């Protein structure tokens, strides 16, 4: 055998493709979500074919979905099209009741906290029942912390000695199991020394707090911080960042004023603040916990809703997730225009406009080829048009599963090809934007299973 000719493959740039799919409650009707799953699965071999004919591009795919909030399927890491597998999306149920709220208490166990600890121990089941009444399942967990070192035999919890604090972690469990778990919690269990959130030395508690939320990302994550002492705010930014990354809302039962750290943690993670400076006795503290449960329940009610109302179509949250991936890094400095493909059957229920503005303010967001498919008669084509933000490209309107399949295939082949290496173009065709988008397929005359 002669030696192979030298060198490697043709130098190629990455082309990042994003599926941004609606899986709100209304997608569960008339088999829409099933059609979407089928259409995307069907399109993958054709997308691979486009990739094979495209030595200029390394096509990488990500997918994310939105309903109440938005999540990656399965991760934000891009996957080479050759290796990409579609994970079927499940639409949210139309009625409330299936969602789960994971609630973790972060409780200061220093000397002054006896009323609060006893209240948590005694009222945790009522607390959970109150939330469950609004249609959510609740799981409870606990992290206790103070200074001085663990003073018992750990049963049902795990102890971690940190830079300054010692903490104990009780895992998430159902309220009744939790009640028996926290029997071991007592004053000064971890040393009894004072607890000063958000001093810099309290930051290393929070990775353990985040880890305690070990449920799937669609569980609503709520942290309830209970502490009657406050430190400075040196650790505040890091603590808030950790909680945000974990998609955790923190409600704080703490001290007002001072460095303002307690109020800030609540405000910046979307939670509420209760001052416990004036509260005394187990009974009155249990009353506050009831208020907290009520607040959480209200929020869940707003988001979970009930009856025939969707759990939310948080398109804005989806765009924010996509925008985070369009920054450099994780985006490389040199690439082909990314393709963002938005599929929705409804209207956004969250702050869509600022999220879109954020996306379009990013260099890669601006350069991205944005296409959108509206499913059925309730799709808000105006919103989809604003997402595309190019008057030459109209959102596609899929009125039945056949049209959806054709549009999905068009997006994953013709649009991808145009973004990576534009094919021979007829003069005058295509938009004047930075990527000439080929004409979409013409809808057929036959309208079958109409949405």
């Amino acid at each position: 055998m002669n030696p192979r000719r030298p060198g490697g493959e043709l130098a190629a740039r990455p082309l990042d493709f994003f599926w941004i799919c609606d899986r709100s409650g209304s997608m569960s009707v008339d088999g829409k979500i099933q059609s979407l799953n089928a259409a995307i699965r069907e399109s993958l071999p054709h997308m691979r074919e486009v990739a094979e004919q495209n030595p200029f591009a390394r096509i990488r795919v990500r997918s994310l979905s939105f309903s109440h909030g938005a999540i990656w399927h399965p991760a934000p890491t891009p996957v080479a099209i050759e290796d990409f597998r579609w994970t079927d999306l499940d639409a949210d149920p139309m009625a409330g009741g299936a969602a789960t709220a994971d609630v973790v208490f972060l409780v200061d166990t220093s000397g002054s906290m006896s009323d609060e600890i006893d209240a948590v121990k005694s009222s945790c089941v009522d607390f959970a029942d109150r939330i469950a009444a609004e249609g959510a399942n609740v799981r409870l967990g606990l992290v206790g912390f103070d200074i001085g070192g663990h003073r018992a035999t750990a049963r049902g919890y795990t102890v971690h000695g940190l830079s300054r604090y010692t903490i104990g972690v009780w895992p998430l469990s159902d309220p009744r199991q939790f009640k028996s778990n926290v029997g071991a919690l007592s004053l000064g269990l971890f040393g009894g020394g004072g607890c000063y959130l958000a001093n810099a030395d309290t930051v290393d508690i929070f990775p353990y707090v985040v880890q305690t939320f070990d449920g799937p990302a669609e569980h609503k994550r709520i942290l309830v911080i209970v502490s009657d002492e406050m430190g400075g705010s040196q650790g505040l930014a890091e603590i808030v960042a950790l909680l945000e990354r974990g998609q955790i809302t923190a409600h704080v039962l703490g001290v007002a004023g001072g460095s303002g750290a307690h109020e800030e943690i609540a405000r910046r993670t979307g939670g509420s603040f209760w001052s416990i400076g004036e509260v005394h006795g187990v009974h009155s503290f249990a009353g506050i916990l009831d208020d907290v449960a009520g607040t959480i329940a209200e929020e869940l009610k707003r988001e979970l809703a009930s009856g025939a109302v969707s759990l939310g179509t948080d398109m804005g949250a989806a765009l924010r997730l996509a925008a985070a991936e369009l920054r450099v890094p994780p985006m490389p400095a040199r690439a082909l225009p990314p393709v963002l493909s938005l599929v929705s059957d409804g209207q956004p229920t969250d702050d869509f406009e600022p999220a879109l503005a954020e996306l379009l303010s990013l260099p890669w967001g601006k350069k991205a080829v944005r296409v959108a498919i509206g499913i059925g008669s309730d799709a808000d084509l105006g919103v989809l048009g604003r997402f595309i933000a190019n008057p030459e490209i109209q959102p596609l309107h899929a009125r039945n599963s056949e049209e959806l399949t054709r549009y999905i295939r068009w997006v994953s082949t013709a649009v991808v090809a145009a973004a990576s290496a534009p094919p021979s173009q007829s003069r005058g065709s295509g938009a004047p934007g930075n990527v000439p988008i080929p004409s979409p397929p013409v809808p057929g005359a036959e309208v079958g299973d109409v949405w």
Partner: protein
Amino acid sequence: MQYILTNVATVTGESSGESYRVGRLLGGGGQGEVYIASGGGQELALKWYFPESATPAQRHALEKLVELPPPSPRFLWPSELATAGGVRSFGYLMPLRPERFKSLFDLMKRRIEPTFRTLLTAGLALADSYWQLHAKGLCYCDISFGNVFFDPANGDVLICDNDNVSIDRKSDGRVPGTPRFMAPEVVLGEPPSSDSDRFSLAVLLFYMLHVHHPLEGAKEHAIHCLDMPALRKLFGEEPIFIFDPENAANRPVAGDQDNAEIYWKIYPRSLRELFTRVFTRGLRDPRDGRVRETEWRDELVRVRDGIFYCANCRGENFYQPEALASLGPHGQLCWSCGKALRLPLRLRYEDNKVSNVVMLNHDTRLFAHHLVGGRQRFDFGAPLAEVTRHPADASRWGLKNLSTVPWYFTPRESDTTVEVLPGRAASLLDGARIAFGPVVGEVRA
């Protein structure tokens, strides 16, 4: 992919009236899709246009093309138009491409690994094919990766998608071409022509031989988002050859654009000079600055004849007379293993007052364009001579006469001439002369 003919069972050939059954989808492009069609006892390829591409102008162009004979059998030429009842749009039939032909995408992605010799054979077959098309007053308009195929075993080529072929300089610019392959003047709005075809051919040959684009250097590397405005700037408004001897502004960037440098050094200077001409003067002077197809053909044959093997690793290397002159007989190093190369015996001959040198490797075969002279057509199917080993003495090499006429062999400094009948071999001895007919060769060590 739109599967426009998924629900169509048959189409009708417009001139034959034959009914063709529509089979599976073979592929899709910017203008339409290609299906298998069977009818009249044969299988053909059927290209069907997307409605927006099925214009009266396209139909008119096809009607003209089907009346013309293919410029050579290497063109999968439209044989007739096709229509289907109840379906808008139309298509045309053409011969099917056999499986052994692979696309240049496969070459760029290194899914196939042909030898240098095969690549040069394919390159000269392409130059020769486009020459035959241009000689008939036609232009192709969209020479690019997607419509050229070759057999990685022997370098045979096929040219597909001939529906954009136009009368040269009368192109209506229906399809201006494919980005990266379009000549700068076409990127900027001129209609394609045989001049722009010659630019696209040069890009294609450069890609095949370097696995890199001739204009993608530091300028491309500095671009964050490679979109249409960027492509227009790189290939239309401000094109600079990566190896422009007078402008170093666009050299390949090490690490990300290594292929170009690796290959550029391997090829002989005469080939590099042709590329330099077409990608410097030829960028700005479409009419006279570009390399003619016949120049490519002659040069690629010359480079092919200059291939010899490294005695150490068997890597294909290229005879570089200028290296021989400046570095001495062992000055050239193998690109693969780095060892000094030793030239094999070679045959020097004159044809049309042009001096030619062919390396006599263990597997060298000579053809009519070598031995008959007078600019014979290239036909790599019918060798007239091949290097062979003496049947009794493995250390002796000869040149076997595979032609139908006798040769005349004269050893060095000898007056004795020996007849070499067809089927016999002449010994390869330094200084020996072989008269093949009008062409006389001399063996050199």
